[in-house]
C-alpha cells in the first residue's frame, strides 16, 4: 500500500501549457434532483481525460454542460478563455472550439456523408464549398473510409458511421473533442476500428474528454482517469494508479464489476 489518501482533485491537469477547459464549483439540477455536485476539473492542452463511473453518475451531463447542451446552474465553465454564459455568441464561440461525438452517432440521415462533414464548416466557418470538400476528403481518408463519401449514413455500418461522426467533429478544427460513450452502441467487431481512430487522434495531440467503458483504451491513451459516482468526482489518477491501486471503496467496487 502506498498513500492511503484518496486523490479526488481533478484540477491538476497534465498536457502542455494552460488549462483549455476549467470547471469550477459547478452544480447541475434536473428539477429537484442534483445531477452534478460541486464539480472542479481542469483539462490541459493536448491532454486526454477519460471519465468513468456507474450509470447515472452524471458523466454525460458533465460533458454536455461544457458545450451547453445542458445549462449548468452554479459555478463557472471556461473553455479556451471564454466563459460560458447565457450570451448566445459565447455559446457559439465555445461550440466552434469543441467537437462532440455521441453514442448514437447522430449523423444527418438526409445528407450524404460528405455533406454531413462539410455542413458545419460551410455554415459556421463560411468555408467555400471546394475547400470544405477537400477538407472532408482529407478527414475521411484519415478515418479510413474515403470511398464512402457519396453514400448516405443509412448505408454504412455502425463503426463506419461513428468514424464519419468523428470526421464531422474534426472538420470544425476544434480545440477539444468530447466523446460520450462512442462505442457503446456498436457491435463488438466494430468497436476496435473506432477506438483505433480515437487512439490516432490522441497520438496526434488532440485534447479529448472521453466518457467510456473501454478500460483498455483508458489504460493505453488516458493521461488521467476521473471516476465519478452520484454526481461527484470520487477519485482521480493516472491509469496505472487507477487500475493497479485504486483507493476509494466505490472505485474498487465499480472496477471489479466492469473489469
Amino acid at each position: 500500500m502506498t498513500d492511503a489518501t484518496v486523490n479526488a482533485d481533478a484540477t491538476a491537469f497534465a498536457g502542455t501549457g494552460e488549462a483549455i477547459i476549467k470547471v469550477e464549483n459547478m452544480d447541475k439540477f434536473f428539477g429537484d434532483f442534483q445531477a452534478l455536485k460541486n464539480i472542479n476539473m481542469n483539462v490541459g492542452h493536448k491532454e486526454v481525460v477519460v471519465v468513468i463511473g456507474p450509470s447515472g453518475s452524471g458523466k454525460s451531463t458533465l460533458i454536455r454542460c461544457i458545450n451547453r447542451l445542458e445549462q449548468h446552474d452554479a459555478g463557472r465553465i471556461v473553455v479556451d478563455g471564454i466563459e460560458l454564459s447565457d450570451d448566445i455568441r459565447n455559446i457559439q464561440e465555445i461550440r466552434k472550439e469543441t467537437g462532440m461525438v455521441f453514442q448514437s452517432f447522430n449523423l444527418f440521415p438526409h445528407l450524404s456523408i460528405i455533406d454531413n462533414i462539410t455542413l458545419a464548416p460551410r455554415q459556421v466557418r463560411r468555408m467555400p464549398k471546394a475547400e470544405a470538400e477537400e477538407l472532408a476528403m482529407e478527414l475521411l481518408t484519415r478515418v479510413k473510409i474515403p470511398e464512402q463519401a457519396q453514400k448516405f449514413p443509412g448505408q454504412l455500418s455502425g463503426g463506419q458511421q461513428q468514424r464519419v461522426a468523428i470526421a464531422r467533429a474534426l472538420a470544425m478544427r476544434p480545440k477539444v473533442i468530447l466523446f460520450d460513450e462512442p462505442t457503446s452502441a456498436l457491435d463488438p467487431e466494430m468497436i476496435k476500428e473506432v477506438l483505433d481512430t480515437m487512439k490516432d487522434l490522441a497520438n496526434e495531440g488532440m485534447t479529448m474528454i472521453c466518457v467510456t467503458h473501454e478500460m483498455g483504451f483508458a489504460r493505453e491513451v488516458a493521461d488521467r482517469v476521473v471516476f465519478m459516482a452520484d454526481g461527484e468526482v470520487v477519485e482521480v489518477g493516472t491509469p496505472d494508479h487507477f487500475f493497479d491501486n485504486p483507493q476509494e471503496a466505490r472505485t474498487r467496487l465499480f472496477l471489479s464489476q466492469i473489469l
Partner: protein
Amino acid sequence: MTDPLITATGDGVPLVVEPNTPPSKKLPPGEWVKANLFSNWYNSLVTLVMAVILIYLARFLIGWAIGVEWQITRTNLRNFMVGGFPADELWRPWAASLLIIAGASLGFGAMSRAEHETDVRNGIPSTKPTQLDLFRRFWPIVLLSIFFVSFARTTPPFIGVAVGIVGLFALREVGWRLPAVIRDRGVFVFAAFLLAGFGCLAGTGGLLAIVAGIIVAVLVSTELGRAGITTRAVVIAGPIAAGLVTYFVLSAIGLEGFGWDDWGGFHITIFATAVGIATGLPFGILLAIGRRSNLPVIKTACVIFIEFVRGVPLITLLLFSSFMLPLFFPAGSDTRSGLTRAMILITAFSAAYFAEIVRGGLQSVPKGQTEAAQASGMSPGAIQRLIVMPQALRNVIPAMVGQAIALFKDTSLLAIIGIADFFQYGEISNTQQDFLGKGLQPVTYTFIALGYWAVAYWMSRESRRLEMKLRVGVR
C-alpha cells in the same frame, strides 16, 4: 470452422452489397396465377366468386355507359372545363395550360438531367428515365385529357390536347438536352413558364407582378450564392432591388388580364387546389414553427388560429367568408370578390391542416439531430432550415399529399358560396332547358367522378414516387 457466411462478413464491409446478379423474383404468368390465385381450394373459390362478381359489374357498367345519352356532357363540355369563360377569350386558358405543361416538361426534364449528372459524378448508378417511365407517371392525366376531349364537338380542342400531350413528352426530351447553364436552373425555367401562363389569364399587374418579383429575388439570391459573393450589402440589397424592378416593370407593362370572377369549372377546381397548396404549405410551416415557439404570444396566436380553423366545418368557414370577410376590407375594394375571399379562406384552411401535419413531422425528428447540429456551432435558424425541417417534411409526405387530395376534393364546397366549379356543373347542366327532368345526373356525376378520381389518383402515385425517391439511401 470455415463457414463461408461468417468469413464473408468482415471488418469494414459496407452494409449495402450489390450482388452481380440479383435473384429474379418474377414468375412466368402461368406460375404467378397458380401461386397467387389458385394456391389451395378456398383461395380458388374466392378467386372464382370475385371473377363472377367483377364480370357481372363490368357488363353492367359497360352496357350502361354505351346505352346512356352522353349528349349532356358534349353540350356542356366547355362549362365543365372553364365555366362561363367567354368564347372569344378562350385562348387564355388554353395558352395558360399549354405554357404550364411546357414549363413543367422543360423544367423537370432539366432537373432530372441535373440530378442524373450529379449521381453519375458521384459514382451512384443512374439511368435516363425513358418516355415509357414518363407515361407511367402521367397516364392518369393523359387519359383524362383524352377522355375529356373525346366529348368535344369542334376540332380546336383536339388539336390543343394533342399539342399538350406531344409537348409533355417532347419538351421533357428538350429539357434533358438543355445546356448546363440553363439546366442547372430548371426550377426557374418552370417558374417562368408558370408565370407566363398565369399572366395570360390574369394579366401582368397585381398578384402576378408580386409573385414574379419574389421569384426574381430568389433567383438573384441563388445566383449570388453560386458566384460565391458573400458581401452582406450585396447579398441583401441585390435580390430586393431586382425583385422591385421586376415588380414595377411588370406593373408598368400593364397587359390586361381577364378578371377572375368569371372563372369556373375544372379550371377553378385545379386553380383553387394549387393556391391552397402553394400558399397553405408555407403558412402551415410557419404556423407549426410558431406553435413550438417559446414566446407565449406567438404560440397562443398560432394555437388559437389552428384550433379554430380545424374545429369548424369548411362549409361554415366558407359561409363566414362570404358574410364576414367583406366587413374587414374597405368597401368597394377588389378583395371583396367572391373568388378572392374563397382563396383567402382556402389558404387559411389548408395552412391550419398542414401546420398540424408539419408539427407531427417536427416531433418525429430525434432530439439528437438538433444536438449534433448545435454541438457543431450552427445557428438555431440554420438548424431548423437545414437539419430539422427537411427531415420533418420528408417524414410526413404521405400525410401532406393526403391533405392535398382532400383539399382538391373539398374545393367542391366552393359551390356553397356561389362559385361554379367543376362539381357544380353536374347540377347546373341538369337544369338546362334541354336536359331538365331527364334524370341525367348519373351521367354528369360519372363524368365528374372520373375527373376527380384521375387527378387524385395521379397525386397519390406521385406521392409514393417521391417517397421512394427520398428514401433512397436514408435509413
